[in-house]
């Protein structure tokens, strides 16, 4: 194995059912239901998934949901904005912890 991540592994995702078919079926059915058209459109859900894929930095998910976003009708501008949303939350999550830094700083400083 040259790298931990291999694009050829993505289509092998469903081999995960081999260890526990019952749990796989629950996951698979639930996953399908989550991404079906509902209060949110399939296109909106794919964009959310794309953003989350970047937040959790999953290359498989980035590959899959870039394709899914295109195939649900999104364009590069919309997909880029979704990634910025994920990035802003990640950046903001770091920055907001600065309040803790300030609290400690305040406590320790004269």
């Amino acid at each position: 194995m040259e790298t931990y991540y291999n694009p050829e592994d993505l289509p092998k995702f469903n081999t995960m059912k081999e260890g526990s078919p019952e749990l796989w079926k629950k996951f698979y059915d639930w996953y399908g239901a989550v991404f079906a058209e509902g209060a949110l459109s399939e296109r909106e859900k794919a964009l959310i998934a794309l953003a989350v894929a970047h937040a959790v930095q999953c290359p498989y998910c980035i590959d899959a949901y870039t394709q899914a976003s295109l195939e649900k009708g999104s364009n590069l501008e919309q997909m880029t904005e979704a990634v910025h949303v994920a990035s802003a939350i990640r950046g903001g999550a770091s920055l907001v912890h600065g309040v803790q830094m300030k609290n400690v700083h305040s406590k320790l400083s004269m």
Partner: protein
Amino acid sequence: MIKTRHKSMKAYGDLLAAANEQLKIINQPDTLPKFEAKFRETGEEKLLANEIEILQVNIGKMCNQVCKHCHVDAGPDRKEIMIRETMQFCIDALAKTNIQTVDITGGAPEMNPDFKWFVSEIRKLNRHIIVRSNLTILVSNGFKDYPKFLADNNVEIISSLPYYTASNTDRQRGDGVFDKSIEAIKILNEFGYGKEGTGLILNLVYNPVGAFLPPKQEALEKDYKRELWNKFSIVFNNLYTITNLPISRFLDYLIESGNYLSYMNKLISAFNPAAALNVMCRNTISVGWDGRLYDCDFNQMLELPLTDGMPHHIKDFDIKLFNRRPIITGRHCYGCTAGAGSSCGGATT
């Protein structure tokens, strides 16, 4: 991003401009299942034609655009144009049948000097006429009276607009195409096209701008209608989503971009038996610019004629013979059977 073309592949002398070179690639990899075997998943042994309802006539390969995905390899340099004598054979064929719809395509069909004559003659037979217009031709010098002509003859217009933004559209169809297309739609709207109650139909076509499948037709149509109305105050009737088939310039793009095998696998894994039973070749006959007959416009470009024993030229047209004929298929047919299916009238399921 792939190169912008200003001329056809044929004009550049590209090897892949030849149909037999394309077929070599499509037929080559033994790792991909053959369409004929996959088709049996429908429960039917062979793809057979039903009664013909549509005569699709390609009246020439000349076009004012050079789109990157064009399956015709059309362009300003293409000289193949249907002559009036061949059009008359089409009229004669129509006159002796009950085929209700004539679907005129190209190239840019308006660039055929006998286009108006052909439309007028079909109109006399009281058949429904569809013209596949690229829109930009309608705002080009020498063609600005065509929107009125089309409206006066109650012609349905089907036009590619691969996305509701300029960047995606122009990447596929050429710089400035989106703006000109919007200008043309505004003019068509002024004549009543796309507006309820006028009877003048303007349908738009979405093609993926790349190696992926189209979205769901209904969902995307809502996005198109909202965006085009909000940004440009323009309207249309229906959106048709059409899958790109792996032939001609799109095949060239797939190979150049390293997407060929993954795209073929995507089409194959999305094979939909219901879509396979609804393919347009079952109720259509395609006529080439020289009068030759094919099962569809794609087979026409691959120079795959009707099966043996059928008439091969429009002058020998005999509708009784075409019913239940075996349709010539190949791996390119996976493009029409993937997902929700694809035809010149959009999704098929």
